[in-house]
């Protein structure tokens, strides 16, 4: 049984200080460009205190709250994958010498990150990307190192957006483990964080903070708040999705979706589990050096499936089918888990508001008729 302790909101910086003493680079939510994004943060003052987000298909707005809540938003356009699987990263640098080639750079160790404010659905996404990058016959060592070193401060959601469907996917909103610390924020008469340690490193840090145990009423209040967030408008029944996707490969629904889909790739970029990438080789003017950079790519982008003279998937319908059938279907065969965690980002950030929780039932209906 994990003991729950209480950290007063005015003492939240003690957590940042303890992480700094351990030489972690803190990254977490902060307000920038009208959105809550993940970036370097130094302390509690950098958090989106007093802000919340309103989300709907194709819509995202920040709003002021009438309290000082730090984590009373849901999820923004960023996800933690940008730290473990950076949007662009140099894989190597080679030099041509004596008619041969040799590597001239060393593998740079990733920063030791402390992730602040990781939601339950995002923990699920981390576990999925662990399988993608470190669970196969070959391993992405940068990802593995960054992940192994990362200190995860999770936050249970006490609010849901209309685009959230983690309850139905079984990934949230309560944090139940797979992190170092789990916080639940309570605002009201007292603004406090209930703190649970879920790892030895987390326990050690909690001990150092010298916190009081939580009162029973506080624990009840936290459970009630997280329970309220579990009541969500949207749902996706994960049962039978791989079979449905497999049966739907030639459904006319893909053409229907393609009439709306702009193939803009937003859904894949905001998705916390999408992992496709491209590489680009760069040389300098001397011709003596060459580098390879890996960059995020998307199954919606032109050239993604290029093969002798043209793309295998030319139609937007084929590209959308690849995205959705992979995410909800073939992902399970490949990694023994769905690729979807129900975070709703693809719904919010789709410029035309395509909603996978609405499209899947249409595919199922098409299958039945």
């Amino acid at each position, binding site marked *: 049984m994990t003991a729950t302790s209480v950290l007063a909101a005015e003492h939240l910086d003690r957590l940042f200080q303890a992480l700094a003493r351990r030489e972690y680079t803190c990254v977490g939510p902060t307000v920038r460009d009208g959105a809550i994004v993940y970036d370097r943060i130094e302390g509690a003052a950098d958090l989106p205190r007093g802000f919340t987000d309103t989300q709907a298909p194709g819509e995202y707005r920040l709003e002021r709250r009438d309290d000082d809540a730090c984590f009373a938003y849901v999820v923004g356009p960023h996800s933690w994958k940008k730290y473990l699987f950076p949007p662009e990263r140099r894989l190597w640098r080679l030099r041509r010498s004596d008619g041969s080639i040799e590597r001239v750079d060393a593998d740079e160790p990733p920063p030791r990150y402390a992730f602040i404010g990781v939601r339950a659905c995002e923990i699920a996404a981390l576990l999925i990307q662990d399988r993608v990058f470190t669970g196969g016959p070959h391993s992405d060592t940068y990802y593995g190192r960054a992940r192994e070193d990362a200190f995860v401060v999770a936050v249970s959601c006490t609010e849901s957006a209309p685009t959230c469907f983690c309850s139905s996917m079984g990934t949230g909103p309560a944090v139940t483990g797979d992190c170092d610390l789990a916080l639940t924020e309570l605002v009201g008469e007292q603004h406090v964080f209930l703190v649970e340690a879920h790892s030895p490193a987390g326990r050690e840090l909690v001990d150092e903070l010298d916190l009081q145990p939580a009162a029973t009423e506080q624990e009840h209040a936290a459970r009630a708040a997280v329970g309220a967030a579990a009541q969500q408008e949207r749902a996706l029944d994960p049962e039978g999705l791989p079979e449905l996707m497999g049966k739907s490969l030639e459904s006319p629904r893909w053409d229907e979706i393609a009439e709306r889909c702009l193939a803009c790739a937003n859904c894949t970029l905001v998705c916390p589990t999408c992992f496709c990438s491209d590489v680009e080789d760069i040389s300098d003017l001397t011709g003596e050096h060459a580098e390879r950079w890996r960059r995020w790519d998307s199954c919606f982008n032109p050239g993604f499936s290029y093969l002798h003279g043209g793309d295998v998937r030319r139609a937007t319908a084929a590209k959308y089918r690849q995205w959705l059938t992979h995410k909800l279907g073939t992902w399970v065969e*490949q990694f023994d888990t769905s690729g979807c965690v129900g975070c709703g980002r693809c719904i919010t950030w789709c410029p035309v508001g395509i909603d996978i929780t609405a499209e899947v039932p249409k595919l199922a209906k098409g299958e039945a008729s």
Partner: protein
Amino acid sequence: MAVGTERAAASADDVWVPRPWVVRSATREIGDTVTLEIEPRDASAARPVAPGQFMMLYIFGVGEVPISVSGTGPTSGLLHTVRDVGAVTHALCNLGVGDVLGARGPFGSAWPIDEHKGCDVVIAAGGIGLAPLRPVVRHVLERRGEYDDVVVLYGSRQPDQLLYTPEFERWRAAGIQVEVTVDHADQTWDGHIGVVPTLVRHARFQVDEAAAFLCGPEVMMRFMAQELVDRGVVPERIHLSLERNMKCAVGMCGRCQLGPEFLCLDGPVFPWTRVERLMAVPEL
């Protein structure tokens, strides 16, 4: 956080880094196609290679492409037969003896030749697709007694695009039936005319004892596999080699997917039964 993976002892991104290999010979097969024999500059970079597998070949400052192994050279080198169709393959086709290129691999699945000892063997290829199958022909040649009737069915668009024709007599001398066709004949051609699947009717083999290995354009492989199945070949004994865009070759870039399959890890060689339905879906 522990993520259940051991920290690799070797240099972090080894799988991504091309190693220097040296060109031992470069032979122009036909107008736009060259066979390179390459060896690792540092013998420790050599790995065992099975027929059907591919390497990622890299030209400094130009780029990298997946190329199937088309045989082993007279010494310890690996053969790659490359058609000049893009920037990297153009540079590969212009390498000379002693030049250095980069290579990673080998990657991917192999032709299950040993699993079909005692069978009749049908090898069907279109165009450059004969390159990944040549190691199968050579494997059978070296162990001729272990296989029954062996047939090579091969076609290209025109007579001057046929690969490895100087070897055909040696194959025939070992009792291998070699049938060749072209889509468009010229005045020099007195052989078959038509697509590769039309050669099946000339092939002498026992359908119920045959294993088939196919490589070529997807449409050719689909019709070939169907033709063989229609004639009674056991679908599970038909194998084919597929191709998709590929950047990493280690199952991470996501580009080479065909349905649930990562061609770089699960393929490129698949049993027909595993990909038949996927190959029938346009633009999958």
